[in-house]
């Protein structure tokens, strides 16, 4: 039992600290963190797939579905309550993941990656074609209400941040527990021997389908929050470079631990804004170099740092993908 409760305890502690610290942070940092955590939800989903050896180059499909769901309901649906919007985004992206899952779950390795890429690019094409939605210009997303409460100015940033934080914590906990469930623990075995799993009575495609739906839903919620935090949506959210960015962060974070997704995503957004700031003309060199250095020195990603830290504090290592 302690094995579960200790990391959870640490997580809860970190959560409270961050939530309080936010009050003192400048608002640019708050909104940067909001966006980072929104994206972290997508990364969390990618980690689930990655543990099973799957890397989609088209996860932006669900990200964009979540974002546009929020934007469209907010604009045309006449509903502005954040919980309605997020729920809608979650349901729609889950459904999309469920449908596409019937195809995707049959694929592995590069073929899985390419098929998901194709699917997201088709959505991209469709969005670019819909001039009524502003085509590539996209459109503005009005600030939502929170159960009737409509915060103003800097407060509205904070409230959104806290909400994202709450969702992140909840998702992190659930995924954490999922990793410790039988189905969750089967991810690594999938990579090692699908045959053995089939001959133990497990439907590997079914298992992957489940993981796809979970990660798709997370991506949808992430996209929803991203839309609310950027206050704008455009088809670029479905473009392959967006998916590439998420994979980038996933590698940076590593499949090592749930917390890694959030730290990794924050570090990435932060590094990016540094890069833009000091190397306006050549920030890509900076990002590329960071990625290379990470893969070289932290092949297991930032998550592995926690692992080492844990050993320092001689805690029992969480047995995610040992």
């Amino acid at each position: 039992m302690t094995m579960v409760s200790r990391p959870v305890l640490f997580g809860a502690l970190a959560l409270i600290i961050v939530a309080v610290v936010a009050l003192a942070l400048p608002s640019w940092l708050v909104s940067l963190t909001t966006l980072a955590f929104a994206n972290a939800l997508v990364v969390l989903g990618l980690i689930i797939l990655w543990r099973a050896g799957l890397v989609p180059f088209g996860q932006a499909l669900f990200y964009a579905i979540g974002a546009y769901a929020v934007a469209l309901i907010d604009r045309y649906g006449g509903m502005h309550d954040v919980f309605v919007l997020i729920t809608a985004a979650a349901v729609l992206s889950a459904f999309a993941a469920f449908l596409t899952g019937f195809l995707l779950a049959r694929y592995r390795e590069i073929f899985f990656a390419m098929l998901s890429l194709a699917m997201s690019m088709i959505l991209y094409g469709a969005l670019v074609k819909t001039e009524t939605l502003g085509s590539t210009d996209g459109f503005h997303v009005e600030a939502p209400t929170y159960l009737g409460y409509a915060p103003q100015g800097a407060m509205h940033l904070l409230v959104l941040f806290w909400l994202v934080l709450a969702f992140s914590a909840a998702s992190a906990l659930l995924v954490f527990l999922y990793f410790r469930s039988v189905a969750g623990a089967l991810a690594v075995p999938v990579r090692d021997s699908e045959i053995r799993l089939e001959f133990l009575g497990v439907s590997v495609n079914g298992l992957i389908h489940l993981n796809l739906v979970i990660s798709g839903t997370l991506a949808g919620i992430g996209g929803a929050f991203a839309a609310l935090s950027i206050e704008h949506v455009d088809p670029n959210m479905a473009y392959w470079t967006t998916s590439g960015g998420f994979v980038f962060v996933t590698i940076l974070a590593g499949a090592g631990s749930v917390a890694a997704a959030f730290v990794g995503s924050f570090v990435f957004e932060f590094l990016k804004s540094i890069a833009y700031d000091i190397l306006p003309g050549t920030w890509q060199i900076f990002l590329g170099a960071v990625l290379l250095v990470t893969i070289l020195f932290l092949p297991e990603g930032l998550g592995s740092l926690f692992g080492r830290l844990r050993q320092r504090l001689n805690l029992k290592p969480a047995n995610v993908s040992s």
Partner: protein
Amino acid sequence: MSAILNVRELEKTFGSLIAAHNINIAVPPLQTVGIIGANGAGKTTFVNMITGHLRPTKGSIWFEGRDITGRPSREITRLGIARSFQVPQIFASLTVLENICTATAIARTTSGLIHQALTPLHSSAILADSDSALELFRIAGYRHALAATLPQGARKLLDIAMAIAGAPRVVLLDEPTSGISIEEKFDLMAVVIAALKRRGITVLFVEHDMDIVERYADRVLAFYDGTVIADGPPVETLENPRIQELISGPKLKLAVPNGRHA
């Protein structure tokens, strides 16, 4: 007494190639059947058809009076037929304990994925079962070793231990001693057969080493060219000169190192 496994006029063709032809076998419960035959005689094809990895072209397979012909392997596994593999199918990047725990946990959550998603992997019950399984197969010593680092013998044992985690009634072992040094073979088979008898499991095992077959099988099936050319008690079957010539001929070839066994 009625057979637990019943195979009628089983046939498998790959295009023009006939891999199995007119195979009829009835296996009574708790029998230990040795399957012999040269490479390509159709042994593995036979095993693959029983366990649902291959769909027979003709004929039917009955398990405990139920027709299981052409059912998917995971369904057949759930019904109670397990198998092990020439190349052990274990989870290389997990420890031995995690391997067996996974198998046990799956066996305890048969009602499907959602059930598995809601059941924690580490429960004392699962740990207890897993430990007893490791004891039973004498690999408790490797408990925390990475499966990838195991010696071949231990891999074979772990593979079989995982296969029977779901308490099957029948298990098929595909060359359990392949790639094992002559010295170890007998100890390994001793452990395996003892364990399976203890769990009251009917065994069919594919084997090239005639001494092993003679020692552990109650009955021998000799495959040649996709058909069963002999079916009877070990001693007389193995001493039949025709069998000798058909089976043992290739046996010499086995002395030559062979890609599949390396």
